[in-house]
């Protein structure tokens, strides 16, 4: 059923989009550059397309959640991103929110199965 797979795919994508920022922020306590972050997240089982991640990093920087620095010491200059002070604050709050959501949804889904 191609239709089922398509519908499921769209909903999963939507779901992941909601937690994308949380996933990205979680890896940025230390400086990372775009591609290294793509790899880390993939290793952690949360792959993000580069075409989605790179613009997101810049947007988060613009919002003041990330600080960026250019490292030109190596032969390939790279832009590194790291949580800003504001970013750390927001990240801590987000974890709490995420745990609440996760707990309620888990309970809801369990309840459904219990019926």
């Amino acid at each position, binding site marked *: 059923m191609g239709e089922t797979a398509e519908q499921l795919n769209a909903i999963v994508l939507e779901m992941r989009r909601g937690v994308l920022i949380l996933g990205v922020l979680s890896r940025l306590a230390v400086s990372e*550059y775009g591609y290294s972050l793509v790899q880390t997240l993939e290793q952690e089982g949360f792959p993000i397309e*580069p075409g*989605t991640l790179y613009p997101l990093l*810049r947007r988060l920087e613009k919002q003041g959640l990330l600080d960026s620095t250019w490292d030109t010491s190596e032969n*390939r*200059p790279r*832009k590194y991103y790291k949580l800003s002070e504001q970013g750390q604050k927001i990240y801590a709050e987000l974890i709490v929110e995420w745990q609440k959501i996760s707990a309620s949804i888990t309970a809801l889904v369990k309840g459904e199965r219990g019926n």
Partner: protein
Amino acid sequence: MEKVERYIYAVTKRLPQKQRSDLEQELRSLIEDMLTEKVKDDKATEKEIDQVLIELGDPAVLADRYRAKRNYLIGPENYETYFLVLKIVVAAVAFGITLAMTIGFFVEPPGSIFELFLKYFSALFGALLQVFAWITVIFAIIEHQNFSISEELKTETWYPADLPELPDKNLAIKPAESLVGLLFAVLAIILFNTAEHLIGIYSFSDDGPMRLIPLFDPEGFRALLPLINIMLAIGMVKESLKLVIRKWTKGLALANLAFNLLSFGLFVLFIRGEGLWSDAFFAFWTEVGLIPSGADPLALWGQVLTGLIAIVALGFLIDSAVNLYKSFRYQQ
């Protein structure tokens, strides 16, 4: 690597100047990282470059993601208002130009119909283009300032009582009707003001060339023309009002009655006006034998006009009465 540069260019050209150079460098290093990962120590081939670029996707889409919000000249939030304003102003300007040209026609009659049409349409085209440009610029500025008209007009907090009333189907005015009315009024104004001598009986006989028997006496017609113009102008104002209000309110129905009375009065004054009808017109009827010799053609024609007036009166009466009835009957 030329393809990579082309890709970077395709993304950054869609973005504001000030973030371009930084983004160019970043994108370049990111793409190189991705290539290095693919080929390790080898040199990247076209095929691998293509794979990486495909992974990054359509440059237009990527550029869209780099912009936090979509760019609109006029966004969906303001589009409806923009279009409504545009319609009303365009109608008003078209009306104004028509009126101005009509007046200009009397003050300084042009050499030919062709010249008049040329003048009219170039003036109309120029004015409409200006109006279109200005309204669009104003709305583009509003859009750019990121400010929504409808939101700005709303009160601070919203209450259910603010909900608009449901439009009553019985009271709705179809915009198409008014637009057709406006169009006909414009055409009639042009016709009466520029081509009055072409209104008449076109007589085709087997042997001779076509004859045109003008309906109006030029002198008499010119004296009475303002009546027709005022009548048509009233009609246009009426249709414009209907177009804007979009439903029959008591006020509109009463205004409609007043407009109809006025129009009817002007119409009667016009067709009963002295010296309006041409002598050739009466001569023609006598010639073809429709008027018995000895009878007074003017008196006979007078009876025809009485019938015509009665029909027009009935039309205005029905229009006035039906809309008055509707507006009082269905209004809450």
